[in-house]
């Protein structure tokens, strides 16, 4: 069997037996379920000077991406940090598996968790039929790869579960802001900053696909931008681990 799948299978078995991880995943589903009962159309959040808030896209984004945030902040970094903490990474180092195999195995598990949890999130929030299109599904898939990559990247800086639990949420908050920033009433300066966050591309395309205004050109540009960030994040993660390996 391919070593990526061998490692992914082991990580999946470990993860489903980790009560802490299961707990945080249930929290993400509760957030999604909460979206069903919250009436976003009541009250006025934006002033007249700011663009109108697209509550439908906001609801969809939260339902899809809050599980991503949980997976990125907790599941993926903890999978890797536990290997360091328990010194099982030393066993993997002397085995036929390379660090790329180890990271790829964990990425597979992270992506599976992201997709499964966001699918459930959409069902729980009642948004399952509201915005599914080729464009939105593609961005959800790319988003799962990006969030998992960020989780792996952050794990390179932590040696203990405590460190990961304390700090791994920070890059996720930045990514999440990029996702929901597009549908929030922001000033022009902050809005420009938000546009630099790679997850922003997902948000723009999601909104366009929900409005039925997504074009092939828009789709291609955002996918290329998003893809470049994904490639850079995974390359940096592999480089950091290869650098620390053997030194």
């Amino acid at each position, binding site marked *: 069997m391919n070593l990526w799948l061998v490692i992914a299978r082991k990580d999946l078995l470990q993860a489903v*037996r980790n009560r802490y991880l299961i707990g945080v995943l249930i929290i993400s589903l509760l957030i999604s379920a909460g979206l069903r009962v919250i009436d976003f159309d009541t009250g006025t959040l934006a002033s007249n000077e700011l663009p109108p808030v697209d509550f439908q896209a906001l609801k969809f984004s939260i339902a899809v991406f809050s599980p991503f945030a949980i997976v990125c902040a907790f599941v993926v970094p903890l999978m890797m940090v536990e290997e360091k903490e328990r010194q099982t990474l*030393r*066993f993997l180092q*002397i085995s036929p598996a390379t660090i790329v195999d180890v990271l790829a195995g964990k990425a597979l598990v992270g992506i599976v968790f992201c997709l499964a949890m966001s699918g459930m999130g959409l069902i729980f929030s009642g948004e399952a039929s509201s915005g599914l299109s080729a464009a939105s599904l593609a961005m959800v898939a790319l988003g799962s790869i990006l969030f998992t990559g960020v989780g792996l990247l952050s794990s390179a800086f932590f040696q203990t579960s405590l460190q990961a639990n304390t700090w791994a949420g920070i890059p996720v908050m930045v990514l999440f802001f990029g996702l929901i920033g597009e549908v929030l009433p922001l000033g022009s300066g902050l809005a420009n900053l938000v546009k630099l966050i790679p997850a922003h591309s997902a948000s723009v395309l999601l909104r366009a696909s929900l409005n039925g205004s997504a074009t092939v050109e828009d789709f291609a540009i955002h996918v290329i931008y998003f893809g470049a960030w994904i490639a850079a994040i995974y390359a940096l993660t592999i480089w950091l681990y290869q650098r620390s390996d*053997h030194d």
Partner: protein
Amino acid sequence: MAIETRKLSKSFGELRAVQELDLAIEEGEIFGFLGSNGAGKTTTISMLTGQLRPSAGAAWIMGQDVTVDYKSLSHLIGVVFEFPNLYLRLSAYQNLYFAAQLYDVPGTRIDELLERMGLTDRAHDSVYEFSSGMKQKLVIARALLHQPRVLFLDEPTSGLDPTFARGIRELVRSLREDGTTIFLTTHYMDEAEQLCDRVAFIEQGEIACQGAPSELKREFGKPLIKVELRDGKAATLSLESDKDRRQLAVWSEANALLSVHSQEASLEDVFVEVVGRPIEA
């Protein structure tokens, strides 16, 4: 040669953890690498197994350069780490199954090793529930799955109760009979004395001396005997001293000796003689 190093060195910044290590270990040999904690034993194992890149020098395992393609070594070596680094949420069987898939070993080998280690009855229990000794046995089983030709044992009996420790020593002996080369680090001198064909003392990253335990004891030990006399007195005499030898002859002729015990030096004594202080655990 199973393991060979030439001026193998490792520094961490200013700290010279291992300095110009020269080793030559034959196939099928049990080689003891002895020293206090922090002397450089684990750093040496880490370099020989591809976990750490040497700062200088070279090393070969079964003729393969460890610094060139350490992944090609993975099927030749097995490592028993000092810390039982297992996946605690998985069962014993699942831990071995994972390793078997990594090394492309058939599943029948798992049952064979669980049986050999006496873990068959607990094969499907979570490793969380295992005692230290059982975890250590499982780590050894995992290291043996792919039948490595060179086995590195890093403090294999550290912290184990005497029964488990004895079991692991018996296992090491049986592995030698199978032709496996064993590189054993320990700070238990009596363990090294019982098991090893040759030992090396490492102190502050340098080899202080190496050789067969019996040779080292002859070279560095003092040939002493302890005598008990019929009048209740006792004395320790050196066989190297003319005066003591004459005194022994006098007591013998006078039929004054009740018992004579040889006071052969232990490896611990040799270590103190060579390094200048006892080994620190």
